[in-house]
């Protein structure tokens, strides 16, 4: 078979190859880091003096919650780049962000609610942080349904990009809700600049877990991005010799 004309396409193939090569690294390193951090968080770190062992949920809840916001910002930025510079690849990144982001948001909500049950005595509270995170989840869902309802992928890209950009106002609301409102949700425990309210022996596993989540998301993004690139490169075909690799 003649595969020569597969090499005609320019930039998306290189992104494709990059994602393909990057993925296993991200994936396996993040798995190793996660295992270590989960072990530390579950068995090594001493129980919190107030929350006892329930505090260990933080090691999955905080990474999921912070990443859910980060992913949305990333999606909005990618969407904006896609709209402004008419860059197909940026739209592909935004599209690939949506599902992992929604899953992370759902995870943050669920683990938060499991954590809230023993701490607050309720599965759910309609407080600012929780509600805004729920709104974030609905934004992800709205983004995905809007995207899915266009037949033409170019129009889907641009229409959903507008929604992603408009929805970005929710990100600071979630981020600072514990600061702005008197919230049932506890305040910020981690801070990159300045003093954190946690002991460093507790913090290291948390930071490792956050990084691991980020890398795991990166791995999922690599796969999702490849799918989106393929979807956008319908009529051309540098792919089959990639398959041989």
């Amino acid at each position, binding site marked *: 078979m003649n595969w020569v004309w597969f090499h005609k396409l320019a930039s998306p193939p290189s992104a494709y190859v990059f994602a393909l090569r990057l993925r296993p690294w991200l994936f396996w390193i993040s798995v190793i880091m996660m295992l270590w951090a989960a072990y530390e968080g579950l068995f090594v770190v001493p129980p919190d003096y107030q929350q006892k062992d329930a505090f260990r949920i933080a090691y999955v809840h905080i990474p999921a919650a912070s990443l859910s916001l980060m992913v949305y910002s990333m999606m909005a930025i990618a969407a904006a780049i896609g709209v402004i510079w008419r860059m197909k690849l940026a739209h592909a990144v935004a599209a690939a962000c949506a599902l992992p982001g929604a899953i992370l948001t759902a995870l943050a909500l669920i683990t938060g609610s499991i954590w809230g049950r023993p701490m607050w005595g309720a599965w759910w509270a309609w407080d600012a942080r929780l509600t805004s995170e729920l709104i974030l989840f609905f934004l992800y869902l709205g983004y995905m349904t809007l995207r899915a309802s266009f037949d033409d992928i170019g129009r889907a890209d641009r229409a959903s990009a507008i929604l992603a*950009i408009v929805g970005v*106002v929710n990100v600071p*609301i979630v981020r600072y809700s514990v600061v702005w409102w008197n919230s049932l949700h506890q305040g910020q425990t981690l801070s990159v600049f300045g003093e954190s309210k946690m002991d460093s022996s507790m913090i290291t596993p948390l930071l490792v877990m956050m990084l691991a989540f980020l890398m795991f998301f990166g791995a999922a993004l690599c796969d999702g991005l490849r799918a989106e690139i393929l979807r956008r490169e319908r009529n051309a075909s540098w792919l089959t010799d990639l398959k041989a690799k």
Partner: protein
Amino acid sequence: MNAPMVNSPDPFKLAVVVLQRELCLALRRWDQVLQPLIFFVVIIALFPLAVSPELSELRRIAPGVLWVAAMLASLLAADALFRPDVEDGTMEQWVLSGQPLPWLLLNKTFAHWILTGMPLVIVMPIVAIALGVNASNWTSWWTMIMSLALGTAILTVLGAVGAALTVGLRRGNMLMALVVLPLEMPVLIFGAQALQMAIRNESAFGILSLLAAILLLSLALAPFAMAAAIRISIE
């Protein structure tokens, strides 16, 4: 449009033209203008039936009921904002006219608010009394009216963005609700809070300012989102 603007008229004249057209059209289809209003009142009438006819009970939930009804009514109305103009090709002419599309759409949205938002604000005190709200002084009424006026304006602008996004889709109505409602939730929270405070005779100035700030922000940014969305939708 990248085309240079030739004979660009005064933006205010342009606004007047758009407003005149919208209001004139609305007068000819006045039944459609009444629909959101009737919907609003009907939704509110459902609550005494479903919850309890006790005025004390209704008084407690009145702010939320009023706000949810206003939100649903504005959502229902928003679908008709661009659809007729996109279907009969008017919107295409607007896009091709070389006039600033965000400005045209903003004025259209303003006309839409006059037609669908303002009636709700006017009817609201009557409905509120029917729900057992008895605000004691004029300041409370004024606060309630202001909160609903600011709130419906924000809802109209956000709804317009959603309508512009989904107008090209055959069955965009439900989708628009999915897309727009999450964005409108903060407005619901603050609006209902303002009403609550007004009923309790507290000063809601802070929340009203916040609503005004949200309105200004959305007025500044939403027209560009609308214009971009309309360009995608009519393509």
